[in-house]
């Protein structure tokens, strides 16, 4: 470096940074506090989510976003603390590269989160093309004109590329908003909630990041850029809400303890390294807060595990009860069935019309009892994986056709219109034909039972590698309260027994277990009580 430049640097009397980021050049201890908190929290949450399911694309993208953000925050810390012009130029250019990349990754994230699948190559190219100039010219004078030594602020001059970066960030923000809004309009209630929370979280995070930096660039007041970091805890807050509300990610006790221990050690590390008194105060305060928060978090997770253990004990007790029902109660029903059948076929001698009528009623009631017990036993077996599915490539349309052939006549006999909306196409899927037929039968049976007048529509279509089967009715509909328990064990609708006296609350639950074992998903939509309902099943199609 030239002598004149060296003289100027010496005149500024900058402190020499240790480990790139620790120096007296940082005049506000809040910088360390806000940066470390955002960096550690975001990176560890991203890592934990990634480790819970490494293959899930959404987890990978979230990890990418949190890693990029952590890098951005680290670069920011270096810019605050370091005194070497070369390093300042490099980390400044790194921020110019990373910042729009975070926005682009967020666009990708929202695509995958909302559509529940990877986006097309065309969409990825459209997102990435705007980043090309930044990647090509990040280390040229178009990004950074040079190091500014006309004062002692340790800043660089930003070129046209930096402004271009802020421009595309605004573009990406609008992209997320428009895409989410378009999807939001066509989604069901629960999906709408998920889209709303994730989009709001991302927008708040990105808005605070972009506003801080634009204000910093325009006003030359880089303290204001700190505001950006407060966006991350908001995003993390929304993410935590997602974890609890939608069980999107499953963080376990060990992971929680690792998280707390890592944060604790890192903060302790800062306390050891730094010698400035006010930084010590801030880090000591952080240590106390982290200890309290960590203790509360670990206690709450331990409580949850204890509850799970109690639940496992209850499941064991229920299995004993199921065994009792299987052997004793079902046995009694079967014996009664033979008695009624014997009366009806004349084994016990001639009978009057009245006795015949009563015996028929008794036999029907008996059959309904056996059917219910079989359903409960099936659910118990499905839950504990008591039997193996006979998985093979099957034509799902053929299963639907067979079911329609059996179920259509009784529905039409009830005076309801039966509509078939089956699109042409290949409906091959991997599954057990017996259990898949149970699913289809259950939906069509239910539609017939819960609809007094109007129609029942059975639909089948294939879209983007997924087979979508639905049964729509004009029946009693589903209230918001009933919707929450619809696919749960014993989850009967409040008024369901008024319409269907045989309702057990196990039918839809068994459907859910079967469909999930086939790696599919099941859900229901309804405008409310009396407004009909639509039940959906989505299965993976076999490519070809």
């Amino acid at each position, binding site marked *: 470096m030239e002598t004149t430049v060296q003289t100027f640097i010496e005149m500024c009397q900058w402190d020499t940074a240790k480990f790139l980021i620790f120096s007296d050049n940082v005049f506000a201890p809040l910088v360390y506090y806000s940066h470390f908190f955002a960096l550690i929290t975001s990176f560890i949450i991203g890592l934990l989510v990634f480790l819970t399911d490494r293959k899930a694309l959404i987890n990978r993208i979230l990890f990418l976003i949190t890693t990029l953000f952590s890098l951005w925050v680290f670069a920011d810390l270096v810019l605050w603390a370091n005194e070497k012009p070369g390093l300042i*130029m490099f980390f400044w250019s*790194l921020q110019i590269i990373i910042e729009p990349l975070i926005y682009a990754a967020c666009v990708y994230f929202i695509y995958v989160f909302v559509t529940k699948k990877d986006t097309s190559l065309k969409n990825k190219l459209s997102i990435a093309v705007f980043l090309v100039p930044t990647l090509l010219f990040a280390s040229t004078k178009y990004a950074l*004109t040079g190091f500014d030594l006309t004062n002692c602020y340790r800043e660089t001059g930003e070129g046209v590329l930096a402004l271009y970066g802020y421009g595309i960030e605004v573009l990406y923000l609008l992209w997320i908003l428009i895409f989410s809004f378009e999807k939001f309009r066509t989604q069901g209630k629960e999906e709408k909630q998920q889209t709303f929370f994730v989009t709001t979280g991302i927008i708040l995070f990105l808005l605070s990041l972009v506003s801080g930096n634009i204000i910093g660039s325009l006003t030359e007041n880089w303290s204001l850029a700190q505001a950006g970091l407060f966006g991350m805890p908001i995003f993390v807050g929304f993410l935590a809400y997602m974890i609890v509300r939608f069980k999107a990610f499953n963080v376990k006790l060990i992971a929680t303890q690792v998280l707390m221990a890592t944060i604790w050690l890192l903060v302790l590390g800062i306390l050891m390294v730094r010698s400035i008194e006010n930084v010590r105060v801030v880090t000591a305060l952080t240590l106390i807060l982290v200890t309290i928060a960590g203790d509360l978090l670990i206690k709450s997770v331990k409580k949850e595990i204890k509850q799970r253990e109690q639940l496992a004990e209850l499941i064991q007790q229920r299995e004993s009860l199921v065994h009792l029902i299987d052997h004793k109660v079902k046995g009694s029903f079967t014996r009664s069935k033979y008695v009624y059948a014997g009366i009806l076929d004349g084994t016990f001698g001639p009978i009057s019309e009245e006795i015949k009528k009563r015996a028929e009623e008794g036999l029907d009631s008996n059959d309904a009892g056996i059917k219910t017990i079989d359903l409960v036993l099936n659910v118990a077996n499905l839950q504990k994986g008591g039997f193996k599915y006979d998985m093979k490539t099957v034509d799902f349309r053929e299963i639907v056709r067979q079911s329609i052939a059996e179920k259509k006549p009784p529905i039409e006999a009830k005076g309801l219109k039966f509509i078939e909306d089956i699109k042409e196409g290949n409906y091959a899927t991997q599954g057990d034909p017996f259990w898949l037929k149970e699913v289809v039968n259950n939906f069509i049976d239910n539609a017939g039972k819960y609809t007094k007048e109007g129609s029942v529509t059975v639909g089948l279509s294939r879209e983007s590698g997924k087979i979508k089967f639905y049964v729509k009715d004009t029946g009693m509909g589903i209230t918001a309260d009933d919707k929450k328990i619809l696919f749960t064990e014993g989850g009967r609708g409040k008024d369901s027994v008024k319409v269907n006296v045989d309702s057990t609350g196990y039918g839809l639950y068994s459907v859910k277990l079967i469909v999930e074992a086939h790696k599919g998903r099941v859900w229901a939509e309804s405008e409310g009580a009396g407004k009909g309902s639509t039940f959906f099943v989505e299965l993976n199609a076999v490519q070809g």
Partner: protein
Amino acid sequence: MESKSKKFVVIFLLLVALSTAFSFYNFVIKENFEVFTDEEAFNEALLEE
């Protein structure tokens, strides 16, 4: 098509790493940048770009 789409993300991230590595080489190792000690020259450079 799906595999091409996945490869694209990996290739793009490699490009990002390459751009970052070049920036490190240019600014930190080669120290290839201008240092402005004169305010007038600095303002002129800003206006140019």
